[in-house]
């Protein structure tokens, strides 16, 4: 195959060299996926720009770097994680921390919340919830063409596990804080599994942070199962520094009459690539995929969305907006696939972008594949500048140009932020976005967590 990166082999060798270490800490069931996955990875490799899905993102420059691989948790990092006390202003959540992709070595690796929901380490859960793992693990991350998903399956050994039993409504959101911290440049991978059984509901907030100024590369996979009649929200707040590269793959599998929303809010990060897969696997399911990205300097943010309508009468929405400054680049690829039998499908997609300089670039591409005939689909994309008439209107009332531009950018971004159902988080995001637009959030800041 000629559409893989020349650095691909380095990472399959990494597996071969560390096979024993990787397998020693996982159950046989999790390990049973590894050999096949690494074989698939050997064929596919790290996607190059010749791959249709990665046309606008050059991963070579990130994977060529000589990272130390973070394959097992160290003691020092666990202590650091324990010190990391997160207290969210007016946002009441059940907090979980991942340090360099591992659940820190705390006493309670898996805990039950008052409502009956289980949260904790995936590694621990693969022992204690082996039946649930067998039912769901590796079932939804089925992107045949993306080598990085296979690399994760081959090598990841921990992550977050969330299990919402049938008929359980969790009122407080679960917040997962992904920390990356090291004195060396590291490559790390983790794997999350979220199971929401039928007639249940949960909201999950994922915050991506970097705690030390080294180069980091993260390749994360999250699998989500949303049972019949269930409700699932995932909000990802990405706030990493310019030397951090974050590649996340999220697979959301939905059953009949379920509702799921994903919101990727990228405030800061060197390279950010989010692949979000929505599989509408039962009649009457509804999925929403939202995203907001604010990038400047040499940052690059790429959102790949894949919505698959496999059953009739499902609805999907995609709304992605971005503001790109300086030399920043962005990409949006929104795929909608409507299977032959998925009659009565409603599928919408919109991507709007504002470029603040002549050097900023945005690549946007809809990709509609429709095999049913009773379908309502729409897509639209814009790339432009702030509206001059609006700008003049505000200035003619005495508002300075800079302030007027801020107001317009803020209004532009607010459409995505108002999709957040958790009010304190929505307010916090409004503030963070305002700070970011003003240039006051120039480094990985405190996200929505305040750390003491």
């Amino acid at each position, binding site marked *: 195959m000629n559409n893989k990166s020349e650095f691909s082999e380095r990472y399959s060798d990494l597996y071969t060299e560390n096979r024993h270490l990787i397998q020693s800490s996982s159950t046989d069931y999790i390990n049973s996926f590894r050999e096949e996955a690494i074989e698939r990875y050997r064929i596919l490799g790290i996607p190059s720009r010749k791959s249709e899905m990665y046309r606008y993102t050059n991963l070579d420059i990130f994977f060529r770097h000589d990272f130390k691989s973070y394959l097992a948790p160290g003691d020092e990092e666990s202590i650091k994680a324990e010190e990391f006390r997160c207290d969210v202003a007016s946002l009441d959540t059940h907090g979980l921390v991942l340090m360099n992709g591992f659940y820190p070595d705390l006493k309670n690796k898996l805990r039950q919340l008052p409502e009956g929901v289980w949260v904790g380490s995936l590694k621990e859960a693969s022992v204690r919830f082996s039946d649930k793992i067998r039912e769901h693990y590796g079932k939804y991350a089925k992107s045949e063409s993306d080598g990085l998903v296979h690399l994760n399956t081959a090598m990841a050994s921990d992550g977050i596990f969330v299990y919402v039993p049938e008929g359980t409504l969790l009122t407080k959101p679960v917040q997962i804080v992904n920390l990356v911290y090291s004195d060396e440049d590291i490559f790390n991978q983790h794997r999350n599994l979220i199971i929401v059984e039928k007639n249940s509901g949960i909201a999950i907030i994922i915050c991506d942070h970097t705690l030390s100024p080294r180069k980091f590369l993260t390749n994360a996979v999250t699998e989500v199962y949303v049972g019949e009649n269930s409700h699932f929200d995932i909000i990802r707040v990405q706030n990493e520094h310019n030397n951090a590269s974050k590649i996340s793959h999220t697979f959301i599998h939905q059953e009949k009459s379920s509702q799921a929303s994903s919101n990727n809010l990228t405030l800061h990060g060197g390279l950010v690539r989010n692949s979000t897969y929505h599989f509408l696997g039962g009649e009457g399911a509804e999925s929403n995929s939202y995203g907001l990205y604010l990038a400047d300097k040499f940052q690059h943010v790429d959102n790949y969305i894949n919505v698959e309508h496999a059953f009739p009468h499902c609805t999907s929405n995609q709304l992605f907006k971005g503001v790109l400054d300086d030399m920043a680049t962005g990409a949006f690829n929104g795929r909608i696939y409507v299977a032959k039998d998925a009659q009565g499908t409603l599928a919408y997609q919109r991507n709007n972008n504002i470029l603040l300089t002549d050097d900023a670039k945005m690549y946007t591409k809809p990709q509609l594949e429709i095999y049913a005939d009773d379908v309502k689909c729409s897509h639209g994309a814009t790339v432009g500048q702030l509206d001059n008439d609006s700008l003049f209107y505000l*200035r003619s009332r005495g508002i300075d140009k800079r302030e007027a531009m801020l107001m*317009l950018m803020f209004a532009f971004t607010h459409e995505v932020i108002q999709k957040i159902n958790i009010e304190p988080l929505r307010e916090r995001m409004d503030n963070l976005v305002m700070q970011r637009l003003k240039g006051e959030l120039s480094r990985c800041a405190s996200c929505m967590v305040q750390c003491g």
Partner: protein
Amino acid sequence: MLVIKNLHASINGKEILKGLDLEVKPGEIHAIMGPNGSGKSTLAAVIAGRELARVTEGTVEYFGRNLLDMLPEERSKEGIFLGFQYPIEIPGVSMVNFLKTAVNTHRRHKGLDPLSASDFLKLMREKKEMVEIDSKLANRSVNEGFSGGEKKKNEIFQMAMLEPTLAILDETDSGLDIDALRVVANGVNKLKRPDNSAVVITHYQRLLDYIVPDVVHVLYDGRIVRTAGKELAFELEEKGYEWIRSEVDNQSGYE
């Protein structure tokens, strides 16, 4: 207050204003009338500082300062207000946030402290009553989904909030029903003070049934061709613009 001399201005390279002279003194209401395409809106654009109108010749002085050197926001802070012919819809920017930012910017410029949230809301309430604007409008995004009449009333409301020294109303009356027209005219009349002025740009004489101007000008082909008292407006209403047109064209023929 405002002295315009020999103003030439073009839009997209086409000369629209061709040597316009105008002087507005404190306390005066001027009406500028004229047929479509005569340059009325270009004049408003030049005074407010819209970039698309390029000044090629002439001077505009505002209280002795060169107005053309000032940014649009500076002009506003110095007391100039443009009521737009086509107010812009700005989704996502709330009326409250917009007006609060504008009012406090003006206050800062005058060396005053910003208004507290409650004082600001009180001011908004007062002005809403004064200009008879539906209070629901203030809870929405700027002009978003407003009807034509609501947009124009909103211009008058903003004018009431900012209390300008010189208001330029660019065809604020066009497309209005009698009720909205009355609201707009009442707003202008109530905001009238001995030290401020208004220039009302209009195609029709109708608005002048409600706003009594001190001076009426006729703008034709980029120049002021007639200036007189309010009786000129009635004459225009009676005879139409054809009368001016033929007279001016004849005159220039003799030159």
